[in-house]
């Protein structure tokens, strides 16, 4: 699963898609996840990283990651070819 290559993300959590002109905001943890996905990390790797960096449990991370990735798909920010 990949974030589309033209999706740009700024340090302040501003996401811009040049192809459609759409923009989004993400919170810091959302931005961290998008950055990791852009580095081609798998969802499992990203989840593990989040679990290690934040005060939470794996079940919560998995549930929230599922929901977040579903939103990325809904907003067409993910390449569906792979």
């Amino acid at each position: 699963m990949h974030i589309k290559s033209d999706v740009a993300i700024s340090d302040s959590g501003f996401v811009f898609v040049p192809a459609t002109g759409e923009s989004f905001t993400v919170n810091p943890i959302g931005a961290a996840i998008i950055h990791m996905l852009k580095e081609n990390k798998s969802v499992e790797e990203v989840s593990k990283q989040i679990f290690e960096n934040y005060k939470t449990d794996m079940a919560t991370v998995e549930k929230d990651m599922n929901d977040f990735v579903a939103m990325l798909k809904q907003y067409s920010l993910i390449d569906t070819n792979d």
Partner: protein
Amino acid sequence: MEKQRYERPLIKKLESSMPNKFGTRTEYVPMTHIDDVAVKDLIDKYESPLFVISEKTIRGNIRKARKAFENRYPKVQFAWSYKTNYLDAVCRTFHQEGSWAEVVSGFEFDKALNNKVDGSKIIFNGPDKTEEDIRKAIQHNALIHIDHLDELYSIQELATKAKKKARVAIRVNMDTGIYPMWDRFGFNYENGQAWDALNKIMRSEVMILEGLHTHIGTFMLSPNAYAVAAGKLADLAISIRDKYQHEVKYIDMGGGFASKNNLKGAYMPGADMNPTIDEFAEAITSTLINSNFKPDKLPLLILETGRALIDDAAHLLGTVISNKRLSDGRRTTIIDIGVNILFTSFWYDHKITPAQPFTQYTEDTVVYGPLCMNIDVIRDNVNLPLLNKGDHVVIQSVGAYNMTQWMQFITLRPRIVMIDTERKVHVIREKENLNQLLEFEHIPDHLKDFNL
């Protein structure tokens, strides 16, 4: 490295047509403490959900209300509306502040007696007074506010039998320019019903007409409606004086002042929009003072204010059970507070505040209660910070009509604590348990056993 506080990841599409709310929510702060007691400690000790009542706020509210009226009018008496919240600790706080009791059933009457309120300081309202209730009210010298003619005849008969005079008033309903008009209670002013009842009382040997009563509605937003009502009662009182040379001792304006809650569908927040108690006081007292009462013969002014004195004195603490997404993409949060204990969520858009720090990121959310019932919606659309499972929330201004109209349904009713003025926490009502409920039930012999 220290782990960071977790917040669920959020992505939100920016609509160019909508103002961007990010970074503008500085008005929204977590409610970590109530009267300096930590919400977290309260939940740790008394469990979730939990009603928390502030004695300090109750006392502050009634003192402010008394001042608003007493600064404008020489003789004022508040009577605590039991049905609004009849927990004994709450009632006694009001009684310590000088309030009489206003009750609408035999059960509430007994509760007031049990709270050591002298019968002569109990106002008995309502359409359902049984013969037993009326007998008791006469015996205790209570003020009986007559609702209909059947009641008037019962009082006549029972007082005659008891050889004791009944102290009465009539409830008057009237057009105050407010829609809907509450004309189902009492006797109508405009069509002469009220006069008819007053003539009957004045001719009776066993009833003493002590006062005139009205209660024009609840959550009223118009001080002017009270001015109209006070004017009509004053006219009645003066006509009685002229016709019978009888002076009524009091005019009772009932309750109904709006609290600072947000009514569903209201455009502006209640705290900004709803009239203050001073505005209601000004409307009522200036009308009475400007009427034809002689300055030294002004009647006692009684107020039965309920919600405006107690709503903001209680909070309901709860806990997030889960976050979910609906099929249409809307975010939902399930909390452990259901409509069975928060009846007023049907009328109000209650303010929900997280009890722990949060970031500026927010999401439009539907807040559901824990009941396995579709009606269990606490807020159908509210912009909330991101809450995690296990986080605590504070629902504000829940003091009126919840702790009396709540019901045991699917879940048992939780504890209620009161924080006193020294910040000491007292359990004033225990949580319910299964055995208490089973005490009401009987199982017929033939249903006792079964094999599955």
